[in-house]
């Protein structure tokens, strides 16, 4: 009744007032008389008019800007994905996306599209946005830089880092000497040009490098620490030099630049001596709070913006101020993380691709239309690589690293990534670099970043032998080796319980490894240890309470599916146990059909669906990453659909074909180790499955009351309700639900198993 009353009230009020409004408008029409109003009527019909207004809206700057951003983000993500699949840093793909959208490709092949999407007058907006993005980005970089690391083990690292700057810098100056006459823009002094070439040769991309180190899992080693420290020192030094170079270029002469430099030094002292303690005090005061208050956030943003403003006014770039503001933020970890998280996503996902596209729009590969120009590009790459690589590798060898580590350091320091782009853009804006040199340098940045991965692989292969012998323990080989892969720490505990149930009694002869991978969210690298500890805590606690030993393995990964199978296959595990991924679109039609999960879009799934390799809806219970793992893993896999799996007293194993025989193995393990009672439904062809029957009978004789065969009629809701776990083969997984469609909601935890692919 109440509902009805509400609806009635709703209809009355909306209907009544709508009529009233219409009446007022009609009556008000008479007021127009004699006011000379021209009715906006045109000869076009309604549809045409609508079309025109649509186009007009698009050409309106904000509409176009939004369209540009949409295009850029989609293309950048797509390219990033491709490169991720190739095992390269996503940054390369994103930079390439920028070039593709620029005049080099889109402008060349589809001039109309390019002119419509990126008309020259619209680039101003894009540029401003991208600059803001860069300022935020540099701020994050500054915050990620842990100055304490520098203080602790600086000595070696600083030597390597400075050697790795001075050598390519000198090489760059030499290079400038040869190409100044033919390629430098007019009205640019040799000193400015040479200094700029020098600085762009000595850049190392701290963020890309940090990510590569994490992806390869060397961030915990001594080598990783040295490289990170080197890169940090490199970053600071290079930015200081860059500030000086900018000052010199802007002031025109070295002497007048001294004023700028003096001001800059004053600024730095002011920031470090006055602002930093102040911020630190504020950080301490608000340490206990869980979230940052809005006032505090506003204050820090103000510091950032004012700092950028000052440096821009002084005559060194605004980016320098942002970087500086980042470094002087309170070094309390939790505090920085909170703040970084706030900015990072917007800065990296939304704004940074804009920056790449702005760089791409400036990169006109078409200008390099002469073999001699390509020769110079080659020369630039050669100088850049040899200067940086040789400089840092030799320095590392000199301070006492072995050859492998020295070469690795050299390779990593040679990674230029997007920091190079930042420098190049500054140079371009200042007019020190012309479009030609700019394009060459962008190519150089791409090449040097791209080669890092393959060269690291090569080095690893060359120096493989002395590493392997240490790690192998023959005892370990004979064990029953379980690998637990969990994504959600809380769900990981169920896997530990399952592993325990499978191997409790033969603890000595079992090894359990838990692996957790995470996608690199932004640039976090300093807090990876904390993150690792937090994520493993529930799993390790569970293992502890069960009195089991567990080995933990943590990695930052771009391609979770591939990395898990890599660990599983190479570690020669006997069983991989994992959870299903919880998807944000779980259950929604869009999520199921298109494979929209946590990734924006998954082309693999789309292709497979189109070609009919995968059934559209049926397989959708199993997420993309899990599918990749299932396809690539050479070892048996068990996927646990966990519905609060606590005990293992009643187990139900439906067998649908003789291929399901391997499931008996799990029954055997569970009965032996934890004393489960197993009910087996045998739907396989009875005439053929003597083996299955025999296996069950044999177990029954040895462990009466622990295993029984049941018929299909026996299974009902009540029966399912009593079960703790259902074990079923992947092959026949869907058959379980064909028995009764609405079971999906009612079943207990399910373990979906695949057989051993080899034997």
């Amino acid at each position, binding site marked *: 009744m109440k509902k009805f009353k509400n609806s009635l009230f709703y209809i009355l009020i909306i209907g009544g007032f709508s009529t009233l409004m219409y009446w007022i408008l009609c009556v008000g029409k008479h007021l127009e008389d004699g006011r000379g109003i021209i009715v906006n009527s045109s000869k076009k019909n309604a549809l045409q008019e609508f079309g025109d207004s649509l186009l007009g809206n698009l050409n309106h700057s904000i509409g176009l800007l939004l369209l540009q951003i949409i295009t850029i983000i989609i293309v950048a993500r797509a390219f990033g994905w491709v490169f991720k699949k190739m095992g390269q840093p996503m940054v390369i793909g994103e930079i390439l996306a920028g070039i593709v959208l620029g005049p080099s490709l889109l402008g060349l092949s589809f001039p109309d599209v390019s002119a419509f999407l990126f008309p020259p007058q619209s680039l101003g907006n894009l540029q401003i946005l991208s600059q803001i993005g860069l300022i935020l980005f540099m701020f994050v970089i500054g915050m990620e830089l842990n100055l304490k690391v520098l203080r602790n083990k600086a000595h070696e690292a600083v030597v390597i880092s400075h050697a790795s700057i001075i050598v390519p810098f000198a090489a760059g100056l030499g290079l400038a000497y040869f190409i100044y006459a033919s390629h430098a823009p007019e009205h640019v002094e040799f000193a400015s040009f040479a200094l700029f070439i020098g600085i762009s040769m000595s850049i190392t991309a701290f963020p890309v490098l940090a990510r590569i180190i994490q992806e390869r899992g060397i961030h915990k080693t001594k080598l990783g620490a040295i490289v990170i420290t080197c890169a940090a020192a490199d970053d600071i030094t290079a930015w200081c030099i860059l500030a000086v170079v900018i000052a010199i270029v802007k002031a025109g002469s070295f002497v007048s630049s001294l004023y700028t430099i003096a001001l800059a030094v004053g600024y730095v002292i002011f920031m470090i001596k006055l602002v930093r303690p102040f911020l630190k005090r504020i950080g301490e005061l608000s340490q206990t709070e869980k979230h940052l208050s809005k006032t505090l956030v506003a204050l820090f943003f103000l510091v950032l913006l004012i700092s950028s403003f000052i440096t821009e006014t002084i005559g060194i770039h605004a980016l320098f101020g942002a970087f500086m503001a980042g470094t002087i933020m309170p070094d309390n970890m939790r505090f920085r993380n909170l703040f970084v998280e706030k900015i990072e996503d917007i800065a990296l996902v939304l704004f940074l691709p804009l920056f790449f596209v702005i760089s791409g729009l400036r990169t006109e590969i078409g200008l390099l239309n002469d073999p001699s120009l390509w020769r110079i590009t080659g020369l630039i790459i050669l100088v850049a690589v040899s200067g940086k690589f040789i400089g840092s590798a030799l320095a590392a060898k000199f301070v006492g690293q072995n050859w492998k580590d020295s070469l690795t350091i050299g390779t990593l320091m040679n990674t230029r990534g997007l920091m190079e782009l930042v420098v190049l853009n500054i140079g371009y804006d200042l007019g020190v670099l012309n479009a030609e040199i700019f394009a060459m340098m962008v190519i150089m940045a791409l090449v040097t970043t791209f080669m890092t991965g393959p060269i690291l692989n090569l080095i690893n292969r060359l120096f493989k032998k002395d590493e392997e012998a240490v790690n192998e323990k023959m005892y370990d080989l004979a064990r029953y080796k379980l690998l637990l892969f969990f994504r959600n720490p809380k769900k990981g505990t169920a896997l530990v319980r399952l592993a325990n149930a499978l191997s409790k009694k033969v603890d*000595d002869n079992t090894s359990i490894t838990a692996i957790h991978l995470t996608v690199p969210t932004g640039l976090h690298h300093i807090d990876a240890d904390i993150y690792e500890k937090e994520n493993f805590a529930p799993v390790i606690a569970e293992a502890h309470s069960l009195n089991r030993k567990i080995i933990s393995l943590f990695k930052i990964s771009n391609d979770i599916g591939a990395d898990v199978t890599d660990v599983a296959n190479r570690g020669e595990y006997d069983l991989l146990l994992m959870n299903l991924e919880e998807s944000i679109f779980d259950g929604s039609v869009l999520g199921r059909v298109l494979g929209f999960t946590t990734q924006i879009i998954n082309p693999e799934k789309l292709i497979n669906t189109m070609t009919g390799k995968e059934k559209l809806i049926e397989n959708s219970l199993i997420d993309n990453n899990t599918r990749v793992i299932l396809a690539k893993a050479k070892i048996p896999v068990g996927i646990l659909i966990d519905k609060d799996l606590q005990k293992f007293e009643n187990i139900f194993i439906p067998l649908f074909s003789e291929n399901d025989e391997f499931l008996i193995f799990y029954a055997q393990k569970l009965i032996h180790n934890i004393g489960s009672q197993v009910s087996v439904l045998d739907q396989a062809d009875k005439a053929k499955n003597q083996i299955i029957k025999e296996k069950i009978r044999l177990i029954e004789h040895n462990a009466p009351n622990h295993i029984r065969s049941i018929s299909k009629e026996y299974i009902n809701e009540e029966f399912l309700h009593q079960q703790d776990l259902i074990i079923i083969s992947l092959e026949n997984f869907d058959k379980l639900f064909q028995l009764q469609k609405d079971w999906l909601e009612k079943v207990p935890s399910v373990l979906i198993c695949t057989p051993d692919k080899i034997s």
Partner: protein
Amino acid sequence: MYISSVSFLIILILGLVSVIIYLYIRLKDSEKKKKEFEGRIQVMRNGADSIHLDTIETVLNPHLFKNILNSVQSHAYQTYFALDKLANILDYILYESKNKFVTPKEEIEFAKDLIEVNKIKLSPLFELTVKTKIDETSSLYSQKILAPLISIDLIENAFKHADLQSPDAYISIVFEFKDNVFSLIVSNKISPKMSLKKEKGGIGAISFEQRLNILYKGCFDLERLIDDDAFIARLKIDLNEYKTKMFNS
């Protein structure tokens, strides 16, 4: 008027009395019928029980038989299975062990059969892990280069000495063939008690090593170690090295 009302009352009382008498007779009648029915039900129940007993008795015997049949059938099946494997083993010993060398493939197949036969004395719940990590593309995998019966000593030992009684007992056997290196790792749980000295035996280990020494001098590696209550043995034969040595000598 008065009389008529009195006579009406009398008639009414008479009527009521007759109704009561009628109802009483009916009640008696139905009680009698009820008793009769109860008696009949009792008789039927007795009859049913005796029939039920008959059926239970007739079912009991075949069920007993079925159970026993099950056990026997199972044993027969196991025996058949074991005999089948044993036949393979016999074949191998009869025809292959005469040859000086067999292929690693054959030897590993043989060893697997041997493990199957040994399984008879184990509970089906026993933790027996057999892993094979074989790179079939290895060039020497199907060449006659491995001495026959080289793997039985370690496997037999594991089944002989494993502490089958303890609940956490296990046997793990790993066959590996990679880069032309054959290796066999056997580990098992051993009883913490002192081993009982037997009158016979005890030459197996020595003769095995002698044989290896004669055949693969310098190209093999035999390790045995005891780690807590686990016994681990590993045999490794570098067939590549052996082959080059063979050609050079």
